[in-house]
């Protein structure tokens, strides 16, 4: 009973401390619950969409080269294969083939809507649920279903027109529905934008492809399901097993396993959730520091009271329980309420996720996961408090009663003579240095907060489209052109078009192939000149015919070191290669290798591979304009510009930036709450000194300056340590995020002026907070101040 009375007294007399701690925990709980729920809901939605969509355990996507019917028949007969579905698709080869309003779809693909072979789930008009499969019929002739992505990208609505336009074909369709398709553009550009037609309209388009092969090409998706008895086989192994000795895999432009479909569909949410969890984790560390700081200052401030309580017969266990229970109750309530508040926010924000992740996500709260996290937080806080509260044992009633409040200062601090000018600044320095150890937790707290802000800021540019292309794509080029034959007149014509805009600086031949390295599937860049590689991380570029470089991510996954020999398989032949270095590339989620053209020939592959040229041009800003012009002038070409790739990634870029800025905002709010808590605590700890200064005639403004200046020093020390933390820890944290998008090394880039701006913001914020808090000097009577209130 006495303990509850003491706890009540704690809450009553230290309202500010408990309210702040409560708010901070609530904030952490809220963002954790939100992150966990979002991550769980999207993963589940992706899994459900995959199961419903009939993507198959693996799907192969062919563009120009397609396996023969004979090969497909053989494939269908294999014991590992349960089912095989061929889904015909038409691709436009010319530009402007798909237009919604003014929006040109870069690489659309057209297929007949047939839920029996590929179930792109049709969304109801309100975009909140799906039309049941049995009620979902194909669009009528003259109508199309488009991927829900377009609704968000272009603002397209049902009833809007959709054009297919080429030199010899121009037809307008009416958009009559939006469908979910996990193959559509997402976190990683998987190369397609789905448009579904009626069977008749598709037939017309397929005929057109035969009539005008330079403008349209008919190809297919191949969905293959594993036989149940081979369910243990990984999707990758399944691909290798079924394609060995055939062209099934080698001809495919894109191969997607079921795992990859789910992975790519939910990767954005996983990365965002990871970012939020990192931020919450840092906040939690800061919260632990503030808790530690609070317990310490409470023990100091209540030194005498604890002595009195002990003298009255209360045991140390009773006193410890008062602190433990009051802090734990606060944290527990904060966490519980954060969880409860997050729940409706998850529900409300769920519809917005469709626009971001192209999935219909349920608004379930991850109660179990979030409560588990809350429990872990409580246990860690409890352990830390138990360590801190051991100090209660050391308080001797007699000493406490004689000394009153525990003496604050133990040394004179820095040897700095008090004199004019800057007397008050000097006084501030002396007091700060005299009780430096007391500020240690405040310095550490600011260090964590500064690191939190810097790291959160660094996330805003981590997946910038510009960086993705320049640093993570792996290849340095401005325009890439895929020719039928690089010795043809087309090449001359193409280069003439490019040079109308800007001189060509260099041209590098490049091709892609699918290989296996130590029996693991991998994409391969085959470069004539390795100068084109822009993201070598370790080792050296391959120079000789027996050398290969691998992405660091792949090497780490398979424990391959530089200098190791690896077995490379392609089209029936195996050769050994020496790993000369590691690089990184976003392509194929980071599962890539690179070797010289002459090295690839060792695998006896016919010399028909190098039909792509990567150009560097003098003025890269013409990149997209040139690509557009080439589409018009030489429609049979496949042209991409790095600027175009960059633009296609701006959606991802914007989402990341948005989330990161939001996190930065939360982090800054967190900094302000913490700043207020710390300065209030320190103010009361040193109130007596301000009373003395006030009594001897030092003006309130000077007194407040003495107090506030100290926070400049505290903040400065914290900023320095925070910056060191950023240098040391940020790469480690980023290396946890990087593999999720196929990159092994995110170099944290923060410009100096940004660091200086944040440092100044911190200094100003802490100074102003301290200045505001020290306003109490004005309001409180000297007698109260000197007697430490």
């Amino acid at each position, binding site marked *: 009973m006495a303990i509850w009375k003491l706890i009540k007294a704690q809450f009553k007399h230290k309202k500010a401390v408990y309210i702040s701690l409560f708010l901070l925990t609530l904030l952490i709980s809220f963002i954790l619950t939100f992150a966990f729920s979002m991550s769980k809901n999207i993963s589940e939605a992706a899994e459900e969409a995959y199961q419903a969509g009939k993507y198959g355990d693996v799907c192969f996507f062919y563009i120009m080269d397609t396996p023969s019917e004979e090969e497909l028949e053989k494939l269908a007969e294999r014991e590992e294969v349960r089912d095989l579905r061929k889904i015909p698709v038409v691709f436009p080869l010319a530009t402007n083939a798909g237009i919604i309003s003014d929006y040109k779809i870069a690489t659309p693909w057209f297929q007949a809507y047939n839920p029996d072979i590929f179930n792109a789930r049709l969304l109801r008009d309100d975009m909140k649920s799906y039309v049941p499969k049995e009620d979902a019929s194909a669009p009528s002739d003259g109508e199309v279903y488009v991927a829900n992505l377009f609704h968000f990208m272009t603002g397209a609505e049902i009833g809007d027109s959709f054009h297919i336009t080429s030199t010899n074909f121009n037809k307008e369709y009416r958009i009559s529905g939006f469908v979910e398709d996990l193959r559509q553009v997402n976190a990683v550009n998987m190369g397609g934008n789905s448009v579904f037609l009626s069977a008749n309209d598709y037939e017309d388009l397929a005929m057109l492809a035969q009539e005008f092969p330079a403008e349209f090409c008919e190809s297919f998706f191949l969905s293959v399901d594993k036989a149940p008895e081979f369910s243990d086989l990984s999707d990758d192994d399944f691909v290798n097993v079924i394609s060995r000795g055939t062209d099934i895999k080698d001809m495919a432009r894109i191969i997607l396993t079921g795992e990859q479909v789910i992975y790519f569909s939910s990767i954005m949410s996983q990365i965002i959730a990871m970012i939020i969890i990192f931020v919450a984790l840092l906040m939690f560390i800061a919260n632990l520091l503030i808790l530690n700081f609070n317990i310490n200052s409470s023990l100091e401030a209540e030194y005498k009271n604890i002595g009195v309580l002990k003298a009255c017969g209360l045991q140390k266990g009773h006193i410890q329980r008062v602190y433990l229970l009051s802090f734990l109750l606060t944290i527990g309530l904060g966490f519980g309420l954060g969880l409860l508040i997050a729940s409706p926010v998850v529900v409300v924000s769920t519809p917005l996720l469709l626009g971001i992740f192209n999935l219909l996500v349920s608004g379930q709260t991850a109660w179990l996961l979030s409560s588990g996290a809350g429990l872990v937080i409580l246990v860690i806080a409890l352990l830390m408090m138990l360590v801190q509260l051991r100090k209660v044992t050391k308080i001797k009633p007699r000493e406490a009663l004689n000394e009153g409040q525990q003496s604050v200062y133990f040394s004179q601090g820095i040897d700095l003579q008090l004199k004019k000018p800057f007397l008050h600044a000097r006084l501030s320095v002396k007091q700060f240095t005299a009780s430096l150890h007391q500020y240690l937790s405040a310095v550490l707290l600011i260090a964590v907060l500064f690191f939190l802000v810097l790291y959160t800021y660094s996330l805003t540019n981590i997946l910038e489209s510009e960086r993705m292309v320049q640093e993570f794509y792996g290849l340095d080029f401005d325009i890439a052109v895929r020719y039928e034959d690089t010795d043809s007149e087309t090449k001359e014509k193409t280069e003439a078009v490019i040079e109308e805009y800007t001189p060509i600086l260099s041209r590098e031949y490049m091709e892609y192939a699918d290989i296996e390295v130590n029996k693991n599937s991998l994409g391969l860049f085959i470069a004539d000149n390795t100068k084109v590689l822009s993201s070598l991380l370790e080792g050296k570029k391959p120079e000789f015919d027996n050398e290969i470089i691998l992405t660091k991510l792949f090497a780490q996954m398979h424990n391959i070191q530089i200098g190791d020999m690896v077995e490379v398989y392609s089209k029936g032949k195996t050769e050994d290669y020496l790993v000369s270095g590691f690089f990184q590339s976003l392509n194929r989620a980071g599962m890539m290798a690179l070797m010289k053209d002459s090295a690839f020939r060792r695998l006896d592959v016919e010399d028909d591979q190098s039909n792509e040229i990567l150009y560097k041009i003098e003025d890269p800003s013409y990149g997209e304009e040139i690509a557009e012009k080439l589409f018009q002038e030489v429609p049979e070409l496949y042209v991409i510009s790095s600027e175009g790739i960059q633009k296609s990634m701006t959606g991802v870029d914007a989402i990341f930036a948005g989330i990161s800025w939001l996190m930065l905002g939360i982090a800054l709010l967190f900094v302000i709450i913490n700043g207020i808590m710390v300065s209030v605590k320190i103010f009361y700890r040193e109130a007596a000194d301000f009373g003395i200064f006030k009594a001897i005639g*030092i003006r309130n403004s000077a007194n407040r300056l003495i107090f506030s200046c100290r926070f400049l020093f505290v903040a400065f020390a914290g900023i320095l340590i925070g910056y060191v933390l950023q240098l040391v820890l940020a790469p480690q944290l980023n290396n946890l995020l990087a593999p999720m998008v196929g990159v092994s090394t995110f170099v944290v880039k923060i410009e100096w002026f940004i660091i200086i701006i944040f440092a100044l913001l911190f200094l100003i914020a802490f100074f102003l907070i301290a200045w505001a808090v020290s306003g109490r000097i004005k309001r409180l009577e000297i007698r109260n101040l000197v007697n430490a209130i």
Partner: protein
Amino acid sequence: MSKAILDCKDLSKSYAHEGIQNHVLKHIDLEIRQGEFTVIMGPSGSGKSTLLYCISGMESCSGGSVYLHGDDITKFNENRLSDIRLQNFGFVFQQIHLVSNLSLLENIVIPGLSRKSGSNKEVYAKADSLLQTFLLEEAKNRLPSQVSGGEQQRAAIARALINQPDIIFADEPTGALNQNNSTIVLDLFTRLNQEGQTIVMVTHDRRAALRGGRIIYLLDGRIHGELTLAPYDEDMLKSRETQVNAWLESLSW
């Protein structure tokens, strides 16, 4: 009769706590003259410390006026009050209240350096002279926690004197000291007063009160009696003690 430095008229002070008004000082009129050593006595809770804090500009009053050289300081804003505390008044606390991380010398020079006038050199010279007078030269670079209570209180008095104030206010200056140190501090006050320093001291210690030339007895927030004594003379201590005791007994203390 010397001229009045401080003149309180109808001074009142009340606190409100949970809606209940507590009247600590009730309509007090008091005049402090140049060179006087005024002692304020009274039982606990009589309002003597509150009176000292109010007339020294440390605390606001609820009513009435306090004139310093003819100016009503109750009308002053906080900055002007700070200037008065810095230039016109010196304050000595019962609990001493030296800044614990500053040496005795640094504690003493702060008010001096805080004034706009006077160079650093002049302030340190004045502090050295005070340290010499108060026999603190050897301890001047020590922290308050490294010297005795008596030395601490002497340093606090030196701090109060550094700006040559018109009045020194002392709130039970011997309250936290042993007898020996109390005597040293009281001797110091006596000497300062004999040199012309105006002192207003709150005490409940009869022995300390004997040092005053005028004793004001406060009871329940009002001045209940006043006794004027002859200048302090160590040889006449016995008769002075008898006179004060008789007066206090007449007031039922």
